[in-house]
């Protein structure tokens, strides 16, 4: 887990076809093209175009109800768990449309992990929580599982805190620790992209800082999309920022640009706290 680790080979596998965004040489993990999403009659996402670059942190900001979570859940198709959902347009994950019939949703979700707003460990031991993903993907060997668990817990910067209590129920941990267990659980499936939906909103400042630092470390190996209500957080940890409003992407740019020199008046109003 040293920062100098070369990119995993899975990531270098495909770099071709998609043209990277003008201002970055990095290939894209996701490219959203004309995505529309309806909950019954509610038009929650309107013609979204958004690239997500590899090994970067992309922040999604916007007022409550603007479709941030919906967009994030569209990326791993969790949004389809709502029965009334209808989707048009494409989301390309490394060149293939995730909504294609031939694209298996289980496969997508092992490449694209998710960390939720509220820490949601299983009522199982810490070990079993982290080993959950590898186990469902067929890893049975005790030794391998142990190695994965340790690696993931280290990756989530919580190994030292829990290494002597792996057999305890995950609910015996604090909220901040639980959230990092959930991050470790997500790392254990060795994803390519990690989606985080307000991962620190239920945490105290200190745990928040830990998770923020962690996100910085993680982007060396993973591509991260993070939804946040916290402007400072977006400014601190992200490379790109997308501003959502009423289901549309109003502005997408390098985080520095968005926060120092936004081109849309509404973005400026939002980040300066005039609404939302």
């Amino acid at each position: 887990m040293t920062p100098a680790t070369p990119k995993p080979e899975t990531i270098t596998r495909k770099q071709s076809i998609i043209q990277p965004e003008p201002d970055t040489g990095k290939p894209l993990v996701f490219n959203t093209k004309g995505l529309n999403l309806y909950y019954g009659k509610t038009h929650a996402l309107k013609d979204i175009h958004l690239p997500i670059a590899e090994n970067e942190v992309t922040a999604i900001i916007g007022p409550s109800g603007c479709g941030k979570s919906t967009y994030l859940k569209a990326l791993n198709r969790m949004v389809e768990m709502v029965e009334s959902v209808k989707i048009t347009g494409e989301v390309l994950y490394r060149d293939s449309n995730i909504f294609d019939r031939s694209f298996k949703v289980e496969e997508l979700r092992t490449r694209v992990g998710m960390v939720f707003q509220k820490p949601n460990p299983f009522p199982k031991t810490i070990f079993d929580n982290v080993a959950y993903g590898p186990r469902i993907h067929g890893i049975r060997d005790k030794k391998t599982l142990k190695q994965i668990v340790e690696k993931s817990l280290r990756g989530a910067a919580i190994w030292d805190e829990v290494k002597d209590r792996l057999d305890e129920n995950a609910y015996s941990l604090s909220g901040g620790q639980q959230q990092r267990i959930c991050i470790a659980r997500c790392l254990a499936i060795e994803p390519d992209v990690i989606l985080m939906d307000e991962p620190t909103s239920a945490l105290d400042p200190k745990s928040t800082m830990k998770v923020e630092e962690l996100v910085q470390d993680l982007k060396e190996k993973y591509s991260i999309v993070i939804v946040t209500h916290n402007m400072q957080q977006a400014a601190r940890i992200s490379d790109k920022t997308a501003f959502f409003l009423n289901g549309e992407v109003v502005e997408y740019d390098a985080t520095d640009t968005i926060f120092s020199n936004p081109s849309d008046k509404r973005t400026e109003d939002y980040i300066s706290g005039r609404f939302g």
Partner: protein
Amino acid sequence: MEYIDIDRVKKRMDKRLFINKMVKGIFFASAMFGLVVLAILLYRVIADSIGWISMDFLTGLLSTSAERAGIRGAIIGTLWLMAIVGPVTMILGVGTAIYLEEYAKKGKIHSIIQTNIANLAGVPSIVFGILGLTIFVRLFGLGASVIAGGLTMSLLVLPIVVVAAQEAIRSVPSHLREASYGMGATKWQTIKNVILPASIAGILTGVILALSRAIGETAPLVVIGIPALLIPVPTNVTDNFTALPMQIYYWTLDAVLVAEYANLAAATIVVLLIVLFILNSAAILIRNKFSKRY
């Protein structure tokens, strides 16, 4: 401008407090009524059974002479019945509940099935007896056997298990499902590894409550022709059998002929009550022991 006149409030106070007390009295009396009736019932039964419950009574075979009669056959018959009802309702009931909660689309058909299950729970047990007689005893030619009785009883208590299991499954927080699906787990893996472990306590409680209903039911057994007077003890599922409530029914009916039969019936009721008490305690223990926080 004051809306509340303190003098009038004071004047009304006594009346309000009196009504308050009276209402409490009414509710207390309602609660006591049930308890008193139950106490009288228990007292009569236990008084009648005193001196009749012994090891010989529990392990002895049925006999026409009251002094030598035992309920071994009925106890073993009841156990056989439970051995069918338990697994059958567990598998069918939990399967139905999982289908309805996790697989079925929540549309019109779903709500029709749902309403029907709720209604089935209220269908008189004798109707299930007729169903069992038609299908299992006659159509399948199973006769008044353990398997026919067990399947009939299973149908009768199935709605209880389905509803209890559905509630248990529904109470598993959706963020646990999301966590599992979010890691690429299939539906079945999520059910097996997350949903069932988190809801097993509620499911087991439902199954036990269903068993305690089945253990005391008499009408369906009467309808499908379970004999009350049966000396041999069943040894497999195709044997004829009798059960504790049938025994009680028979002895109570014939108490006009032999007075001591009333005591035998009372003694059997006490045995049945003890079994019920044990089952219900188990249900409560399981519920407390497994009740988890999420």
